[in-house]
């Protein structure tokens, strides 16, 4: 498939990309959508599947009310219509990991319709992406082929796990936009606390419908559906591969086949899974075992009252109330726990919130990434970080020493004040003490002094460095600078 990659010369600019995403979010309920079995991840195969999940003869589904609440929450968060009456339908097909031979889903009359959210487009402007619908359904089990000799295993622990499938309008115009949209949905469901969004465990995954058309053309091109993209990176790579492939086909005078394609992350390519002709006729019809979901105003109001501040509102507030740069506010509010951490750290410090933001986005995020930890598992508490920054701003320590203190805090040595005290890191601001060191440095470097005086201004850095070295980094750099300049110009 290397041919698809030499695209640069072939006039990509003529083509417009059209993408719609179907995001499958596992709802964070204790028990399954239609049974009392646990939804916990990672149990031994088939230990968390009760008779209802196994599709035994005579058993019947009973709706878990939690999922209705969660779907309603999502609907309100994306400014959608929450249906006062929605119905479950059966999607019929045979597969060994689908115990009943049908999946209970919603078809006509889904619980959420006509929503929207904002993403940032390539030029940094807000772009509205429509959400066609979001519907409730049960997940299937898993087929296991590896490690079994000439046979396949079925694990039905996942069967009956509640999913909210969120379907976007075909409003996305690039793989980057698709990722931005997916990240936004990810952020919203986690803010709402309706999903853990764990992509490794498959709680958050998506299918992408991709097509291309000539710019200016009204009619949509033939689309392909890319299945089971379970990371942001794969979404981007798979879509980009697919765009190039489709353009290649069309430029060579061919036609795109409507089909389902699977992304192979090892080979970084998509390949055909089944064509439209092979596609199942799912024979959807209303599930006679379940009553329609009926929701009244009081229920919706009660759910509305539980809605937290959402990422967009929080981002705006961080800019207006804290004066944080818009881009940083976006990063901080991508996850609710990161935003909470920022607010808590700011509360514990008297420094400019932007400085707090810099430390969180910089050193703290780097440390977390390195340790593979989530912000909620940070080894440095917000009050510790706030305390550290207070000591920077009141000149007790320099920014450079602050990094040493930060590392010590990460290793569990206590508060900034304790570490500064025990390690003797207090910054030297006493000018007479600094002057003594400066005089010593000037005396030791006559050649550099001469060069400086003859115009090599940049050497000031060299002198500062020497002074800092002598003071083990504890001299206040601003004071050092000032005295140095003064003395060198004498």
């Amino acid at each position, binding site marked *: 498939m290397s041919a698809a990659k030499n695209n640069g010369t072939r006039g990509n600019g003529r083509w417009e990309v059209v993408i719609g995403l179907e995001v499958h979010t596992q709802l964070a309920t204790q028990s399954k959508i239609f049974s009392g079995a646990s939804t916990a991840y990672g149990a031994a195969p088939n230990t968390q599947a009760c*008779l209802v999940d*196994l*599709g*035994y*003869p*005579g*058993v*019947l*589904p*009973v*709706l878990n009310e939690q999922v209705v609440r969660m779907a309603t929450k999502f609907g309100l968060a994306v400014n959608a219509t929450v249906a006062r009456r929605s119905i479950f339908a*059966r999607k*019929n097909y*045979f597969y*060994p990991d689908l*115990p*009943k*031979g*049908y999946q209970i889903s919603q078809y006509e009359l889904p619980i959420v319709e006509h929503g929207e959210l904002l993403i940032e487009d390539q030029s940094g402007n807000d772009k509205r992406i429509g959400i066609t619908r979001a519907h409730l359904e049960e997940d299937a089990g898993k087929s296991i082929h590896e490690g079994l000799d000439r046979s396949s295993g*079925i694990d039905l622990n996942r069967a009956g796990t509640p999913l909210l499938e969120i379907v976007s309008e075909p409003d996305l115009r690039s793989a980057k936009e698709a990722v931005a949209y997916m990240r936004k949905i990810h952020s919203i469901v986690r803010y709402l606390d309706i999903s853990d969004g764990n992509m490794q465990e498959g709680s958050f995954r998506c299918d992408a419908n991709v097509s291309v058309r000539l710019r200016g053309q009204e009619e949509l091109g033939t689309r392909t559906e890319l299945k089971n993209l379970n990371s942001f990176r794969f979404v981007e790579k798979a879509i980009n591969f697919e765009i190039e492939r489709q353009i290649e086909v069309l430029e060579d005078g061919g036609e795109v086949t409507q089909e389902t394609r699977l992304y192979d992350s090892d080979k970084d390519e998509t390949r055909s899974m089944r064509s439209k002709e092979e596609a199942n*006729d799912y*024979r*959807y*019809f209303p599930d*006679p*075992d*379940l*009553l329609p979901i009926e929701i009244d105003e009081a229920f919706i109001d009660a759910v509305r009252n539980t809605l937290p501040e959402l990422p967009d509102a929080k981002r705006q507030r961080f800019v207006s109330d804290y004066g944080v740069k818009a881009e940083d506010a976006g990063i901080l509010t991508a996850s609710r726990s990161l935003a909470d951490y920022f607010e808590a750290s700011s509360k514990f410090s008297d420094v400019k919130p932007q400085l707090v933001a810099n430390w969180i986005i910089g050193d703290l995020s780097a440390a977390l990434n390195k340790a593979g930890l989530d912000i909620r598992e940070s080894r440095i508490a917000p009050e510790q970080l706030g305390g550290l920054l207070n000591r920077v701003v009141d000149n007790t320590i320099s920014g450079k020493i602050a990094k040493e203190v930060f590392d010590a805090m990460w290793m569990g040595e206590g508060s900034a004040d304790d570490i500064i005290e025990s390690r003797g890191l207090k910054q030297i601001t006493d000018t007479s003490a600094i002057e003594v060191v400066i005089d010593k440095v000037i005396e030791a470097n006559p050649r550099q002094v001469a060069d400086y005086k003859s115009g090599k201004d940049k050497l000031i850095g060299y002198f500062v460095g020497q002074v800092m070295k002598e003071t083990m980094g504890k001299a206040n750099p601003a004071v050092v600078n000032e005295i140095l300049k003064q003395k060198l110009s004498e």
Partner: protein
Amino acid sequence: MELHAQTLTDLQAGLERGDFSSVEITQALLDRIAKFDTDLNAFITVTSERALAAAKRADEVRSSGDNGVLCGLPIVHKDIFCTRDVTTTCGSRMLENFVSPYDATVVERFADAGAVVLGKTNMDEFAMGSSNETSFFGPVKNPWNLECSPGGSSGGSATAVAARLAPAATGTDTGGSIRQPAALTNTIGIKPTYGRVSRYGMIAFASSLDQAGVITRSAADAALLLGVMAGFDSRDSTSIDHPVPDYVAGLNGSLDGLRVGIVRQHFDEGLDAACADAVRESLGVLEAQGATLSEVDLPNLDYCVPTYYVVAPAECSSNLSRFDGVRFGHRAADPKDLLDLYCRSRGEGFGAEVKRRIMTGTYVLSAGYYDAYYLKAQKVRQLICQDFKRAFADVDVIAGPTTPTPAFKLGDKTDDPITMYLNDIYTIGANLAGLPAMSVPCGIIDGLPIGLHMVGPHWAEETLLCTAHQFARQTDWHMRSPEAYR
């Protein structure tokens, strides 16, 4: 009176008086089953040991005074109700060796009330049939004439009760499967309001139509059993939380002023003339007790059968998908791949009628046909519901024949599914509209019994049972039994 000839109510009184023990009743009936069932084939499984043990326990409990309402009373279950430890076959090769890991709610409620289960009765495969000939375990014979069908799908239950092998049996009714066999065997059959009895553990045929009920030899027995079965079950989302009245206490109401509706089309062509006369005579019996007769119109009556044969197969095609040879039930030997496993497991496990309905149902739900068939049928179903609603503004009960003819010969209709389907022409409407309905013995034509069919508005079981009880006090049809089985 001999034990086997007594009704549940009689037996209950006898047990209370200490005239006999539950073990004696149970043994007597097991002996009869052993004697007659080789010919009748009413049972798929007879649970002799378990029954005797349960009867013994019941006798012990009774002497301690702490006994349930059915303590020590024998019943049989249609083999569609899941029972722990005993096979539940649903009349199919597919489930020939299937043992359910749980008890159906109905089974549980009878067990809790102290009933003794003698066995599980034969039925049309997955309850699809009106003659009991689609059973993998062979047809059931009608005790009134062994060459005749007892009707279906609850034919085993009806025959067991009619032949005095058991005083009462559970059944299920999707289009007439309790009432039609009751009519053809001179027993009483009641199908309650949809949602009255839990469907949990009752193997689904057509979920929106299926309802459990009973077949007995007296209205009082039906009232007694319905009181035990009925009531809300949180495991069935379509079960309705509606109070359960004391059905037995309601039996002694008066028919004075009861408004009985008659549907003119019921007496049009298609109804056997002798049947028509017997039904008219029965209506006269009601009138003589103070009931008033008037004509009601059900304009969409003709569409009941076609509507049913779209809706029921559609639901069945989906409900039966779980029988795929993967987790339970029949599995083809040495499948060469997944498709082969599916095709042969289902091909071997299901009989012809079940396959016919799965195919019909798959067809009517297919893309391109859904609107013309399934959706249209759902709309007609709404019209049929409205027809009944309108009619019940003026009458309390709609009465007519249960079947167009008495029992037909085994093998007579097996080649012609349409004629077979038309046997349910009078009963299907109640299922489509979710209404309670009953069949009561009302005549014998050339040695074969027929039934009077009564439908009431939602939750009118009390009215139906009372009417049946009062009707039976003026007639002796329900007392008649087939000569060889007295």
